[in-house]
């Protein structure tokens, strides 16, 4: 999620970071590790006990210091040495932080994993972090270890939400990562505007007005009449794209799902009716709705959005007046989250296992994370607890406790249809469709542009 904020805000900049890290690779011999990695996996599977840790260095690849600060504040025994070094017992923790701008993080991680086999023991990657949009790119390879091979059982993970696991389950059904966050997201509406347009700001009644896309579109028409803009078409995109009936790529071919097509058609109608706009997320125009003068009816977002994207510290903002409300919205979806994966070839398997267990399944730690860091944590019981007490009341939502809706949403999110190409397809589709919404192209031309961009990005795919 944060990566998203940035890469969009930053607008790609001095791009060609594309190459980042490719210096280390010898492009000629990169297929090799697969077989050996496979045999290695089988070997570990056979042995119930993990081999004793021999590594003196724990290498962690990530794109910012979010996980670092979580580890620092919540993992017992972690001592910080400096910005990129720490200590757990005798093991030195080395953080490799590569910004995700212009795909630099993935490029760097690619090279590190491809070189994993030949790397010296102290240089081998032990842990790496991924985001949902591209998780399968790594999870569906032998570079990521199955959690079962680390000795983490289903029972350990039973309190987690299923969708957080489907994101990191490979094509053979093996779970290969774990997250401490469950970022189910919903409909964050402007209470003043809701009273004006719908005559109520009660979450249940507002929910009834946007319960499905037909009702949402009707409401949007009323909202436009009242002089408001519903939101940006890019706000609703994730809601549609999370609820597709098939994968983006099937048998090497890009397939346009019905729900994506529906997003294009719905959005075009709403843009033409001036009920929605085409602002890019995180831009100035998009952000104007955070203040009453912006005349924006709603945003779509998860729990982290409340605290970090609504400018509650600015006295002129809606948030500072407690002027927002939260309900589930037309369809359940999620937004954001960081997953921890163990790299095949780690020489600190026991430590890696312990970090994953403590940080993503230990209820006491998760409760701490929820209260201290305001993450919406990946634990059904912790969220239930928050939903039932006043701890979960949020001032900027006018004192509403959204945890029940957040927990319900997280249960309903279904991500069985994600693919390794989601990030590229979603981004390119939004960019191409914008041309159609703004009247610079017909729908067909925009879709052709999308297909062209996909084939450039993924030369192995066909798009016709």
């Amino acid at each position, binding site marked *: *999620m*944060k*990566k998203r*904020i*940035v*890469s969009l*805000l*930053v607008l790609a*900049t*001095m*791009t*060609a*970071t594309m*190459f*980042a*890290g*490719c*210096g*280390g690779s010898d492009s000629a011999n990169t297929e090799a590790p697969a077989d050996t990695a496979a045999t290695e996996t089988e070997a570990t599977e056979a042995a119930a006990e993990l081999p004793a840790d021999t590594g003196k260095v724990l290498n962690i690849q990530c*794109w*910012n*210091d*979010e996980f670092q*600060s979580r580890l620092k504040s919540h993992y017992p025994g972690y001592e910080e040495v400096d*910005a*990129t070094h720490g200590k757990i017992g005798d093991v030195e923790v080395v953080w*490799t*932080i590569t*910004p*995700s*701008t212009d795909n*630099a993080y993935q490029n760097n991680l690619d090279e590190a994993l491809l070189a994993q086999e030949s790397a010296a023991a102290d240089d081998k990657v032990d842990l790496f972090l991924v985001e949902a949009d591209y998780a399968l790119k790594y999870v569906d390879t032998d570079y990521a270890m199955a959690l079962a091979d680390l000795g983490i059982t289903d029972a350990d993970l039973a309190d987690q939400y299923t969708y957080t696991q489907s994101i990191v389950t490979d094509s053979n059904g093996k779970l290969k990562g774990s997250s401490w966050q469950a970022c189910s997201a919903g409909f964050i509406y402007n209470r003043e505007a809701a009273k004006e347009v719908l005559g109520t700001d009660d979450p249940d009644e507002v929910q009834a007005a946007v319960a499905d896309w037909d009702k949402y579109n009707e409401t949007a028409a009323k909202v436009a009449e009242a002089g408001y803009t519903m939101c940006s078409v890019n706000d609703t995109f994730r809601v549609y794209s999370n609820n597709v009936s098939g994968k983006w790529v099937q048998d090497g071919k890009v397939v346009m799902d019905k729900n994506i097509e529906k997003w294009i058609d719905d959005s075009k109608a709403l843009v033409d009716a001036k009920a929605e706009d085409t602002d890019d997320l995180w831009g*100035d125009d998009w*952000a*104007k709705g*955070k*203040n009453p003068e912006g005349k924006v009816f709603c945003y779509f977002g998860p729990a*982290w959005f409340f605290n*970090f*994207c609504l*400018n509650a*510290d*600015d006295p002129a*903002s809606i948030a500072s007046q407690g002027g927002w409300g939260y309900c589930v919205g037309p369809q359940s979806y999620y937004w954001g989250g960081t997953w921890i994966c163990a790299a095949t070839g780690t020489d600190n398997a026991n430590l890696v296992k312990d970090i994953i267990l403590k940080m993503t399944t230990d209820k006491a730690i998760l409760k701490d994370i929820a209260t201290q*860091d305001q993450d919406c944590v990946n634990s059904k019981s912790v969220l239930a607890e928050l939903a039932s007490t006043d701890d979960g009341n949020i001032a900027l939502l006018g004192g509403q406790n959204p945890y029940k809706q957040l927990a319900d949403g997280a249960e309903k999110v279904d991500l069985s249809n994600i693919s390794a190409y989601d990030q590229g397809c979603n981004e390119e589709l939004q960019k191409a469709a914008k041309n159609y919404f703004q009247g610079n192209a017909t729908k067909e031309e925009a879709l052709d542009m999308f297909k062209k961009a996909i084939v450039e990005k993924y030369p192995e795919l066909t798009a016709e």
Partner: protein
Amino acid sequence: MDMAANTTIAGKQDTGASVHARRVVSYVVLIIISFLCLFWFYVLFINATRSNSELSLGFTAVPSTHFVENWTNLKNGTLPILNGLINSLVIAFLTAGLATYFSAMTAYAIHAYDFKGKKFMFTFILMIMMIPTQVTVLGFLQLIDKMGLDNNPAALIVPAIASPAVFFYMKQYMDSTLPLSLVEAARIDGSGEFRTFNQIVVPLMKPAIAVQAIFSFVNSWNNYFTPALVLHDDTKKTLPILIAQLRSADWLKFDMGQVYMMIAFSIFPVIIVYLILSKHIVGGVTLGGVKG
């Protein structure tokens, strides 16, 4: 020179009035242009004084109150900005020095001597200039990796010795201002070729060297593309990489105020270098004995 004298010299067609009119026009144009040039620095400064949530609400013309706060946050953050400043300075200085000195030398070789293959060399270097950096950087990275120069600032500095564009400028400049008779004269005085170059040619090339030194310095200072690919350690990174890193901070820490503060911080040294070097260009260097 007073007004009367000037009018006499300016000749019959140019009356005092028309000079006056032209002067007014040029002042107006220059003031508009100066405004357009300085405006951006003003906006950067304003933005550096604003907090993240103020920035997300768009542009204002009045400064806010978060200047010190942004600076403290930046200074106490995890990024080694002081290190970055030193790295940027070292790399930019060396790059500018090597590029200008060796380009002048190369240009002099082609300008002052007659040898076989000279035409070919000239054309050849111009051809090199046409290759976009983005194209060869892949091979470049593989190469420095094999040479063990990965993560080493030398990989950014040494290649500056072969800077075709700087060479081309030096060559053109010599064509218009460096008469070979001067070199001949030095030879007759018994000066060695290397000494002639260093003690006669280089000083004469001062304006050109100052110009290209500024350009090389600024280029290197603002360069993100290659350094981001070559430097991996936090302590070796240059300012533009650190800015990019600051911008990809997670949403908990993401702070445009700090980003603008850092941009302002990294522009400051380059302005100083520019002001120092620009004296050689805009102050009016007289080229003593050189006749067109």
